[in-house]
């Protein structure tokens, strides 16, 4: 279950596929340092022109919400239909809005 202290740390890799789009999570890899992580990410996740820019982030730096909190975190937005445009009846004559 545990990694020895001599194991290379884990990094999360995010790739921007082209300018104008956000970086998106591609996967992860082990590397001794950030520079090597970037180089390995290039080799592993962009072999077919998948990207123009890469971020690598130590996996240990990711703070994630817990699945147990799904209800309290995300349920409150389910009962607010007035945040969606379809909640409002606007006659067709008004045109696109």
């Amino acid at each position: 279950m545990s990694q020895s202290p001599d194991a290379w740390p884990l990094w999360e890799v995010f790739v921007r596929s082209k300018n104008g789009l956000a970086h998106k999570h591609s996967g992860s890899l082990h590397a001794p340092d950030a520079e090597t992580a970037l180089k390995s990410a290039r080799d592993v996740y962009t072999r077919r022109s998948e990207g123009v820019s890469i971020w690598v982030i130590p996996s240990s730096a990711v703070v994630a919400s817990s699945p147990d909190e799904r209800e309290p975190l995300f349920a409150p937005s389910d009962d607010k239909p007035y945040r969606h445009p379809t909640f409002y009846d606007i006659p067709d004559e008004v045109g696109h809005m």
Partner: protein
Amino acid sequence: MGEEISLEHRFQAYVDADNKVEPKDWMPEKYRKTMIRQISQHAHSEVVGMLPEANWITRAPSLRSKLILLAKVQDEGGHGLYLYSAAETLGISREELLDDLLAGRAKYSSIFNYPTLSWADMGAVGWLVDGAAIANQVMLCRTSYGPYARAMVRICKEESFHQRQGYEIMMHLAAGTPDQKAMAQDALNRWWWPSLMMFGPPDDQSPNTAQSMAWRIKRKTNDELRQEFVDKTVPQVEFLGLQVPDSDLKWNEARGHYDFGPIDWEEFFQVVGGNGPCNKERLAARQKAHDDGMWVREAALAHAKKRAAASAASNDLKTSAA
């Protein structure tokens, strides 16, 4: 205990509705263990699978074919990495996974314990072995464990060139001199049956299939996948003008499928059990690569620690100067 049962019920309902399970979600311990075993076996197969093909990189007949083979083998290394990463999301470390492989405790696809004897084998392997792997992997793109499914989607995108480059090699040989055509036929003869075995034992001898189907880890049974593969591949053999090495093979109009002869499961279990032609050689090659790379791993880590210490010291200096 009661709570555990209701959690399991909820989990079953959740996967029944085609929802994906993500790493931090609750899952039955047996699901976690099954996923770790399946994903890591798959990862090991990608990694060990590089060996039979690497055998031919330096002897590829042209620069073009050498570049293609290198790219394919490099892809397989990447596939291993995607899969190890997916397995690690379940709480097992990369080191443990590699230890299991090197110690001979872990399984990998038995097909990679067969030797690659001629250049035609690069054709047959890409076409049949990658072809069989693709059939399985396309199904697994919809598997219930999210990280595994995502790795499969990426892998499937990369795989289709593997099969096509293999078939191209077979096309060239089959259209070549009589000797070249004979080489292609010989490769087909040797790889056909082991490729059919890749889908695993028949359904009535595959104890884990029912649970895997229930958890939506698998979507099709071994026999279903095998039949699909045969149906798809026989016309490809005919196009090459080669013969499937199976005298029982014939189209069954009523079933709408090809009937094929019995598979030698004794051979399969021998190879899985460690007695295939190359089992020892493959593990020895993996062990050697691991040992030879040791100094690189250690040096990289020492370098990273030294640089981290140096940058921490220079930050301290800056802080105290300010």
